[in-house]
């Protein structure tokens, strides 16, 4: 693990999006690990530490909500910060994620990749 690079866990089941996002983030100098669903994300978290989690909500096997619950249960205070990046925009969904402790809830179709990078930088720096 390189010490000067920040590690991002990207949890996203849509491969087209995840590959684009991962390469964009890597260009910015981050190390990115991709998990395709909540289960893989849980394993990834166990295996190593991350500076931030970028999390989709609607995924097979274990969705984002369930993952967040597991995260809180397993890691509690030590859990890395999470930004939700989802298509869900309803208030009820936003409240849910905020209640689960996410830093920000971003709707995919409302932002550009640039803006996403800015949000991540705001949380963990470059």
């Amino acid at each position, binding site marked *: 693990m390189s010490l000067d690079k920040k590690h991002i866990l990207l949890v996203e089941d*849509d491969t*087209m999006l995840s590959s684009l996002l991962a390469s*964009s983030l890597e260009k910015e100098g981050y190390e990115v690990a991709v998990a395709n669903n909540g289960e893989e994300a849980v394993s990834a978290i166990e295996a190593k530490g991350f500076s931030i989690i970028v999390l989709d909500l*609607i995924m097979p096997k274990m969705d984002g909500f369930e993952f967040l619950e597991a995260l809180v249960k397993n890691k509690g205070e030590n859990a890395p910060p999470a930004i939700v990046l989802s*298509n*869900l925009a*309803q208030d*009820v969904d936003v409240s849910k994620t905020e209640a689960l402790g996410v830093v920000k809830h971003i709707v995919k*179709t409302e932002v*550009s990749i640039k803006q996403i990078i800015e949000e991540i930088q705001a949380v963990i720096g470059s």
Partner: protein
Amino acid sequence: MTIGKKLFLSFSFIATFAVLVTGLFTFQSAKEGITKRILSDLTLLTETQEGAVLMFLDRIAARTSDFASDGFIRDKTQEIVLGEADAVVIKELNQHLIKNKLSLENAMVGIKIIDLEGKTIAATADSEIGQTEPEDSAFHNLLPMDYGEVVLDTVRRGEYFGDARLVLAAAAPLYDRVGEHINGYLVAYLNANIFNDLMSGVYSEDLGAQSSLRGRSESFEMYLVDTDGYMISASRYIDDVVLNKLITIQPVLQCAFDIETTGFFESYTGKQNVGAAMCLPNGWTLVAELQEQEAFAEINKTQKQIGILILIVLAFGSLLSMVVVRKLVFPIRNLIEKTKLLESGDFSARTKIETNDELETLGNSFNSMVERLGELNEMKTEFISIASHQLRAPLATMKWYGQIVADGDAGVLTETQKEYIDRMNSSTERLITLVNDFLSISRIDSGKIQFNPEPVNIIDVINTLVDNVFNIQIQDKQIQYTLNTEKKVALVNVDPALIREVCSALIQNAIKYNREKGKITISFEEDEKLTKIIIQDTGIGIPDDEKSKIFSKFFRASNAVQSGVGGVGLGLHAVKQMVELMGGKIGFESTDGQGAAFTITLKKSDV
């Protein structure tokens, strides 16, 4: 009026009515029955007593007549009258009267013989002899009577035979032996106290009715009234009443017309009595009466009992209706409460009715219904979530990849390529907006939009939109865009997401329907509490006859359709809903063919 009150009133009314009717009816019949019985008893009594009195008077008359037929008396009287008698004769006569006549009748207190001038010439008491009958005496000027005829006086009070007495006098003519000439009169005096005894039942032959009345009743009395209207027997209420009190009660007055009264009248004591009267042939009235109150004491008691019964029934009625209220109304109220909860969107509302009747069934149906509604509600939320995701996912991909390419990060672009990719990105944005509109409408329709107001800088919102979302379109169409911000605009109290959608939609329209090289001007107006945002364009405008429908769902103005510009007719509808949800207003002015100016009025933030 609540059901409880209605029930209570119904119960009370029915019960009271029933009791009253029954009671009144029973009371009436009973009173009639009792009245009949009392009057018949009294009538029987008075008839009997009348008989007794008359019999007595007849006896006295017979006695007097008998005495007056005595030969010795007649002879001696004649002698005295003719002046042929001396003191011895008179004394003989007196003795005769005393021994042989007076002794025959206990009721008599004395006998005297008067001459035609009214002077007493013989008597059973010496004190009487020589006295002349007073002017007002009944025997002062007696009219000629037949042999054997007797005349009865009225009851009088006075000095008779050496004592103050109450007397009734009977007079008979003393004829000479030949029967042609009246020499004088024999006057027999009765102790009028005898009438007290008659009235009080000492001589009563029919003890049955009288004794029962007397025994039962405290106010019962029977008395005699003479022709002048004076009482001639003792009263149980007033001392020394005989010949001192004028009795003017109805029965007495009616006897003047020979009408015998039975019924209710005001007695000489002033009380309301029930009684019967007999009109004696000699002009006297015999009255038997008792107090009405006493006579109908039982009935009156019954009346009171009925009154108490009514109160009990009322008390019972309220108790009963309270129980019914509990059983009926409480469950209904519970149901109303839960329905109100449901109205406000709480799908967890359930009733608990265990009355084992139709209400319980209703309650259970209600609970099932609410559960079903809750499920449907859940499904709606789920649907919107799913729809959001499914529609947006590919759009997100299109947007991001499009941006990467447009930014040149996927390779250098030719002019044309850049142009094309920019247009594609613009379309992507429009599609994203459209999807957002659809989803907003779905949410508004199902009541799912939450409005979380906070102070928002409206200028920032507009700038972000114009710079990031609409910049390409504005460039493409060469729109002249102006934002008037000479004055500082206050923060507005709105939901940031909603206001963003609203502004986005209006700006989009301003661009969409505008002409090439047209203008868009955004300006602001303020007063104390409100901020107005005016978005003015130089587009196709809105025809007059379609202005009223412009905010309707799926409505597109004819000129919009003809222009070939895309759209579903949701934009303005959604905008209006959202603006109103934020407590604001939307309006517009437009001239067909020249453009439109939409104004949103929003509440200022207090901060």
